[in-house]
């Protein structure tokens, strides 16, 4: 029985038993529901075995939304625990598991699949293709991601979750210091999902480079497609590093190899390096598509061509190159000398330059535009100033000597949430709202959407701004509690209040989906936003083959220019 003991929950609590029961009941309910409505055949034929890029995209997004709520519950638990000093809601071990799964779930199983979902739906349409290059491989990618995500998620009821942080540093993550099977889940589940991502990378590079509509040369591609192309190049070169790192971790933990050990010649710092050689490009994998989404939305609702097309492309290429040579900024304090720190400090600060170019381009696009304040546009407008705060604090962190003070404090936590939430999360929510009518044939309610926008934006700032202050005052990250005398109490309580605001905002999004599905008008045009690129040129709902006639393209804003010349891409009699 020893073997099976490893899979018992090492740290049981009423909450975990309750979740076990809840998971069991939900599964029974889902199975019973599908059987009752006789939907098994439909589900199997139309969804589970589909190779259509649009449906695969929708499944990615559904899974990502589920994971958003899983990760969101983790976040609420952390904020509740730290809301008051010396709180006993979670103990240290639970808190460790919660912040670890929160990080992994949000980055790898929420942000990534949400982006990959949008890219699946939109990219082939934007380039006038009928599907991706390898549709079946695309389905394999999805199912690898999905199985990886599910494997990771069952960890907390079967054997215990990983507890060494999403960065899983050695020696903490070694068998000596993390005895439970938790960290094995980390190594294996992420590996499975990661291979799916790598295959997606290959698939979309081939699709974009080889399957564009006639006339669409590279410098006529829509900006979202450009961002996806560059992102996939980063995926193809960064993910193999993660594959190797996780394989070595698996072997260290399961087969007794010595890669990251402290004795027998191993090097724990090797893990930190491998992890961040993948990890830093990874943060750009989730931000570049967001930049692409904002570029589409801002030019659509400013009713102007995107300002500085060429410099947008060049800056993305620059960012993607730089993203591979900055990784050591994540461990300035771990003892590489002044020379190494200095070099990485400079390369890191250099990233701010192309990023700044992009910010100015968006501002110039807005300048003198006839701005329409739709929900996607509101997210895009809020993104610019909030993300800039994230970028500026990034440059503060980039100064190696100053980072000795900021590193591993709440200041760092505030920084990366200030880039990731207004960057990636706002972008996927904006993109989701923007492309929703193309996917489903009706619009989401603008009114409910605006309520959730305000809850999310205000809630976000109330949650994370206080962390800049407590961080500068020395509050360490990943600590499950603090004493009253530190004085961190009130600001942490404020963070908790903000987190509730955020939660309400996300709940409103779900309500919006429900409400609009029931009541929204089905009578919309193929182009309800008066948009600019080819995905709006085809019918809603999109036929399985996307375009009856493959469109010919002669400008960067192909559909917009065609509309102005009163050409009709749908003119098939």
């Amino acid at each position, binding site marked *: 029985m020893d073997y099976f003991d490893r899979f018992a929950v090492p740290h049981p609590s009423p909450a975990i038993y309750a979740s076990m029961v809840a998971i069991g009941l939900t599964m029974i309910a889902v199975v019973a529901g599908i059987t009752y409505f006789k939907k098994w055949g439909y589900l199997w034929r139309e969804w589970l075995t589909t190779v259509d890029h649009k449906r695969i995209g929708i499944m990615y997004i559904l899974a990502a939304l589920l994971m958003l709520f899983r990760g969101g519950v983790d976040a609420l638990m952390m904020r509740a625990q730290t809301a008051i000093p010396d709180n006993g809601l979670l103990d240290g071990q639970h808190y460790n598991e919660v912040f670890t799964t929160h990080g992994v779930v949000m980055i790898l199983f929420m942000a990534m699949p949400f982006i990959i979902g949008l890219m699946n739906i939109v990219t082939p349409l934007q380039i006038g293709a009928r599907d991706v290059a390898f549709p079946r491989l695309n389905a394999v990618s999805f199912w690898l991601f999905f199985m990886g995500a599910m494997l990771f998620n069952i960890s907390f009821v079967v054997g215990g979750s990983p507890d060494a942080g999403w960065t899983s540093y050695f020696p903490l993550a070694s068998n000596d210091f993390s005895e439970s099977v938790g960290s094995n889940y980390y190594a294996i589940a992420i590996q499975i999902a990661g291979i799916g991502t790598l295959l997606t990378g290959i698939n979309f590079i081939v699709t974009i480079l*080889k399957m564009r509509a006639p006339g669409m040369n590279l410098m006529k591609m829509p900006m979202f497609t450009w961002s996806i192309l560059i992102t996939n190049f980063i995926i*193809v070169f960064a993910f*193999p590093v993660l594959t190797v790192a996780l394989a*070595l971790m698996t072997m260290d933990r399961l087969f007794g190899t*010595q890669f990251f050990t402290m004795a027998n010649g191993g090097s724990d710092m090797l893990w930190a390096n491998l992890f961040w050689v993948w990890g830093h490009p990874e943060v750009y994998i989730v931000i570049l598509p967001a930049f692409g989404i904002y570029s589409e939305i801002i030019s659509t609702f400013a009713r102007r061509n995107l300002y500085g097309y060429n410099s947008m492309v060049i800056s993305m290429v620059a960012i993607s190159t730089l993203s591979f040579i900055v990784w050591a900024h994540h461990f300035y304090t771990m003892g590489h000398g002044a020379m190494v720190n200095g070099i990485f400090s400079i390369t890191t600060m250099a990233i701010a330059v192309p990023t700044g170019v992009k910010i100015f381009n968006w501002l110039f696009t807005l300048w003198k535009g006839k701005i329409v304040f739709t929900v996607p546009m509101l997210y895009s407008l809020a993104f610019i100033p909030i993300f800039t705060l994230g970028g500026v604090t990034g440059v503060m962190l980039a100064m190696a000597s100053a980072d000795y003070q900021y590193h591993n404090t709440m200041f760092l936590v505030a920084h990366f949430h200030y880039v990731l939430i207004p960057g990636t999360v706002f972008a996927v929510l904006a993109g989701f709202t923007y492309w929703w009518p193309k996917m489903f044939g009706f619009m989401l309610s603008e009114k409910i959407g605006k309520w959730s926008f305000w809850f999310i934006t205000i809630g976000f700032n109330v949650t994370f701004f206080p962390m800049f202050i407590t961080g500068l005052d020395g509050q360490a990250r990943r600590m499950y509690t603090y004493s009253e005398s530190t004085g961190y109490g009130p600001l942490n309580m404020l963070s908790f209040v903000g987190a509730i605001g955020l939660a309400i905002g996300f709940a409103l999004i779900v309500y919006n989906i429900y409400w609009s599905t029931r009541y929204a008008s089905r009578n919309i045009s193929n182009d309800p936003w008066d948009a600019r690129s080819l995905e709006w040129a085809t019918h809603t709902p999109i036929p399985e083959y996307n375009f009856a006639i493959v469109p010919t393209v002669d400008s960067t804003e192909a559909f917009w220019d065609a509309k102005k010349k009163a050409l009709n891409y749908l003119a098939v009699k």
Partner: protein
Amino acid sequence: MKIDNSLPLEYSTEENRLKIFGFWIFLGAEIALFATLFATYFVLVDGTGNGPTGEHLFKLPTLMFQTIFLLTSSFTIGLGINAMRLGRQKATIGFFIITLILGLGFLGVEIYEFVEYVHEGATIQTSAFLSSLFTLLGTHGAHVTLGLFWEPSSSCRSKSAV
């Protein structure tokens, strides 16, 4: 299916062109993968702990055999592809079989070498140097093994499609 006869055989359909291009991108990823494994090896090469060092382990003859087998097999598979483009079925199959034998030879020597190492007390668990050595060589060996199965299976498939 549209077949363009002006191109080499394997490029003559759109589907194949996409697949070959996709495979080049995949090779890019493989380069990143092996670069990471090599980097790991070079970082850990002095991490011999209480185990043997490279000087103790590496022997020239096995190394020579492996290199000769491997390089020759790259050459013979090239000849095989060339014969295929010329439409000479027998020659194609012949070269492919020679390639497979060379691949098997390489694997045989590699396995022999691994067994020798283990007998000398150098296992994958002994030291970081050996962990990285076995992993690097083993990953490469796994690629060769996969090729040994993939080559005949795709040959048979294209034969039954003719």
